[in-house]
């Protein structure tokens, strides 16, 4: 599961987060992470 | 939020008329004149433009940074 940092934009894997209690960006320490959109192509009916 | 593509009642295409309508209203022209000149005759279509509020511009400020 990949997450993007809100400040530096770096991508962090969920595995790396598990090491420390509390989530923080591995690069800059910012605590707001956004989940990256799945690479699966989403098929939507235009209704 | 954003101007609907078509009139809710009759289905006439109105989305493409919004930007010109908005610009001319901002310049001070009376709405009835602008609507007439854009060729929007039925009041079902007229209210689509007349009563639309572009909330998306406000919402944009709160969407997630990429």
């Amino acid at each position, binding site marked *: 599961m990949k997450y993007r940092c809100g400040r530096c934009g770096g991508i962090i894997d969920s595995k790396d987060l598990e090491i420390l209690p509390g989530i923080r960006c591995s690069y800059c320490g910012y605590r707001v992470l956004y989940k990256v959109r799945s690479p699966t192509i989403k098929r939507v009916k*235009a209704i | *939020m*954003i101007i609907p593509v078509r009139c809710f009642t009759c289905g*006439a295409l109105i989305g493409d008329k919004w930007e010109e309508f908005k610009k001319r209203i901002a310049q001070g022209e009376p709405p009835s004149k602008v609507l007439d000149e854009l060729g929007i005759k039925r009041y079902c279509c007229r209210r689509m433009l007349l009563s639309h509020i572009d909330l998306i511009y406000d919402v944009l400020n709160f969407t997630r940074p*990429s």
Partner: protein
Amino acid sequence: MEVSILEYSDKYLKALVRNVPLPLINALRRTIIAEVPTMAIDEVLFIDNTSALYDEIIAHRLGLIPLKTDLDRYKMPEEVGCKDITQCREVAVRLILDVEAKDDIRVVYSGDLKSEDPEITPVSDKIPIVILSKGQKIALEAYARLGRGREHIKWSPVSVSVFKYLPKIEVNLELCTYCGECVKACPRKIFSIEGDNIKIGNIINCILCRACEEACPTKAITVSWESDSFVFYIESTGALPSKRIIVEAFKILKNKLLQLQKKVMEATK
């Protein structure tokens, strides 16, 4: 049967028809709305969307955009047994949208859609699809196919398809006092009085509201309509020219009747 054209362009068609039975005109009206096929986006493959609008909302908007239609080169999916329109070249057209708002707020318009078939493009390039803030991106593939209004109204070739009775206004000149109350009451300004002459303007503009009948103090006015005569009006979305819409509607109606005739003949053999 008589047909006279009151207004005609690719977008509008208004005709005065006489001696046509009402069920026939109504059948034409309904066939135009529900059975004449048009091209419209039906499936959207999202690669990326960081805009303020959900994928489904954007897909909904894309579906509603009227597309110029070529009825001769494409077939309905049922005709060729197509199960996945993204794989059937004779059924679907692919339109690609790939926009990123690099430095400013950017409005994504229908004109940004790149179609693989230059004949099948949006009727207007100025329809806003979504608005992107700085850094936001949208990347998608939209597939358009032929469909009918009865499946989803986005496939209807018209926004308006109506008919009304042809009005008939009779003024009993023995009772008329030329008071002018009818002139004031009429919302469509049909009446005019000059001295002791009452004139009726364009009767086609009458909306049969009977305000004149009520306003007349001597009950000199009678509002009714010509039997089997109608004013027929259609307004195209731009997907097909108005004349083509009517031609196709009659073709479809005729086909249905022929099919029914065939079945009845077979069943009664």
